[in-house]
């Protein structure tokens, strides 16, 4: 979810700047006769071409990659029952939904020798308490990217509700994330299920709307970078790249009230046909060197702790990419709030959008 670049942004960049291939090529899943294959359904950027090629060279398993840009797209594909993917990368709460609907199967950790390399801080989370169904891949935070020259240093979500910043605010186009902001300002959990509290949070978002310039989950970093807004609610990965490009001008903060800690994790769909290959691939990704190579290319924090030795220091020491334990402690992982609450959240969000 945090990696989805708008098709627009990508295409414009491709036309104007000639951007290099970041593994956006999508090949149809299919099985060549006799050859071993693995069909992966994944966010863009997560699995660069050279990492896939190296795996194929090592194991002879051909990796077919198809891309999606939202958890909802992934849910729809798996719920439709016609997909034949062997690995998918849902975010935390989506793992829980897939599990509840019996759309994923257990991962056999005994077949993954490198499982021990996983960051214990990411394990045992509510969406998969016994680490049976999901293998954390990349993780990060949702916070505020800001223009230091315009708003100074900030540390609270409240700036997003401040009249002073009217017309200079970008919010993610994401119901759960926006409600999380309002709930945190109210001092509540991002996984609140009390309808009265959720409605109150919804009212906050409705009142906030006239201050918001645009809702955008795709190229929020660019909108901030190009000066269309001075405050951007967004995922750390893209914002960290912007901040690194000009530290005097831009900053990223995980507000003091607390925020979302997101974890994108590999799961094996219940109907996967190449389960052994999937385990082999997961083991490969948890290799220290491969893990480091991945992080150095995509600039996202990895669940592979053993990879740290090989990660470039400017990435490893960047607090917007690898937050401190103190920051992680005040963050919450999004949970599956159940059908009833999800329905209420959809309704509230529709009202915000219609306002």
């Amino acid at each position, binding site marked *: 979810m945090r990696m989805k670049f708008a098709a*627009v942004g990508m*295409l414009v960049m491709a036309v104007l700047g000639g951007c290099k291939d970041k593994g956006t090529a999508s090949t149809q899943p299919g099985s060549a006769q006799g050859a071993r294959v693995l069909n992966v359904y994944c966010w863009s950027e997560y699995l660069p071409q050279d990492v896939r090629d190296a795996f194929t060279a090592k194991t002879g398993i051909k990796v077919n990659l198809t891309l999606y840009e939202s958890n909802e797209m992934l849910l729809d594909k798996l719920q439709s029952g016609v997909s034949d993917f062997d690995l998918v990368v849902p975010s935390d709460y989506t793992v829980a*939904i897939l599990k509840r*609907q019996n759309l994923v199967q257990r991962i056999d950790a005994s077949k993954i020798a490198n499982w021990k390399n996983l960051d214990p801080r990411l394990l045992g989370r509510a969406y998969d308490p016994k680490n049976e169904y999901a293998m954390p891949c990349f993780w990060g935070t949702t916070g505020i990217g800001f223009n230091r020259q315009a708003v100074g240093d900030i540390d609270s979500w409240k700036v997003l509700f401040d009249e002073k910043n009217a017309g200079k605010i970008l919010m993610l*186009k994401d119901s759960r994330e926006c409600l999380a902001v309002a709930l945190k300002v109210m001092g509540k959990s991002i996984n609140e299920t009390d309808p009265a509290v959720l409605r109150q949070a919804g009212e906050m978002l409705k009142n906030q709307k006239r201050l918001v310039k645009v809702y955008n989950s795709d190229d929020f970093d660019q909108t901030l970078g*190009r000066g*269309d807004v001075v405050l951007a609610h967004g995922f750390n990965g893209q914002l960290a790249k912007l901040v690194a490009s000009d530290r005097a001008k831009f900053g990223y903060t995980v507000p003091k009230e607390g925020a979302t800690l997101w974890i994108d994790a590999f799961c094996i769909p219940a109907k996967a046909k190449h389960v052994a290959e999937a385990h082999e691939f997961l083991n490969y990704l948890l290799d220290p060197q491969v893990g480091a190579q991945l992080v150095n290319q995509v600039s996202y924090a990895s669940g592979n702790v053993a990879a740290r030795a090989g990660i470039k220091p400017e990435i490893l020491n960047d607090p917007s990419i690898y937050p401190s334990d103190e920051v992680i402690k005040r963050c919450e992982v999004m949970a599956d709030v159940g059908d009833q609450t999800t329905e209420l959240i*959809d309704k509230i969000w529709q009202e915000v959008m*219609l306002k």
Partner: protein
Amino acid sequence: MKNGALRTWLQLLPTWLVLGIFFLAPMAIMLGISFREKGPAGTIKPIDDMKQYITKGTFLNNYRESLDPSYAGVYWRSLWLAVATTALCLLIGYPVAYYIAIVANPMRKNLLLAMVAIPFWTSFLIRMGAWKLILETQGVLNTMLGAVGIAPLDMLYTPGAVLTGLVYGELPFMILPLYASLEKMDRTLLEAAADLGAGATSRFFRVTVPQTMSGIIAGIVLVLIPAAGQFVVSDILGGAKGALVGNIIQEGFQRNKPLKSAIAFELTAVVGLMLAVYGLYLHRRRRKEAAL
């Protein structure tokens, strides 16, 4: 005779198959879904008691909800933007088509027409992304304005930006039918009108416009309908308060297929009504021509 009828039938069969599979069947499915209730996680709730479902009017719930006053703002914005787009396209498109069809050197006509069509070679998404680069705070236009001492204007994420994108995107669909009707216009009538003492303005409004009315109407239909259902332009250029009915249908469609299908069907019905009016106009026009 019987054989002839069969042959006609067989000749029409491919058309009907294509229309049936790719148009009528999906429409029927969508209509069916619009009468259902949404279940959890993007599913559709099964109907427990069909009789109650119908007698209690449950099947109309989505239509009731979509006509709630809270939707009025979005519908109104979609309507006026679609109408304004059509009007602007006509105002800009007519002189352009007139120039290509009547004024321009015949040798250059094809070149000019190609220039109208060339933007289609580039994906619509890219062209809208380019408009974003033009309109943004530090964009092309503001840089140019800055060079002549004008402070940056707030252009991106406004209704004006959406209107600009819509007019830009739909303009060729106005120019091409207008060109076609201007091209085949009987120009001797203009000479006759001049001989009879009609001035330039009078000749344009009383001879040229009536003769190209079919092109004008076709252009209006071709622009108004897509403009009414647009969601890409408003998504990219529209900002927080720029949602159109197309965005309301598209966003979260997976999560609430019945409601979104109902709204989509209402939009289709409005468009269908417009097409019916257009069809009626064509029909009456043909009868009038036949009577002459």
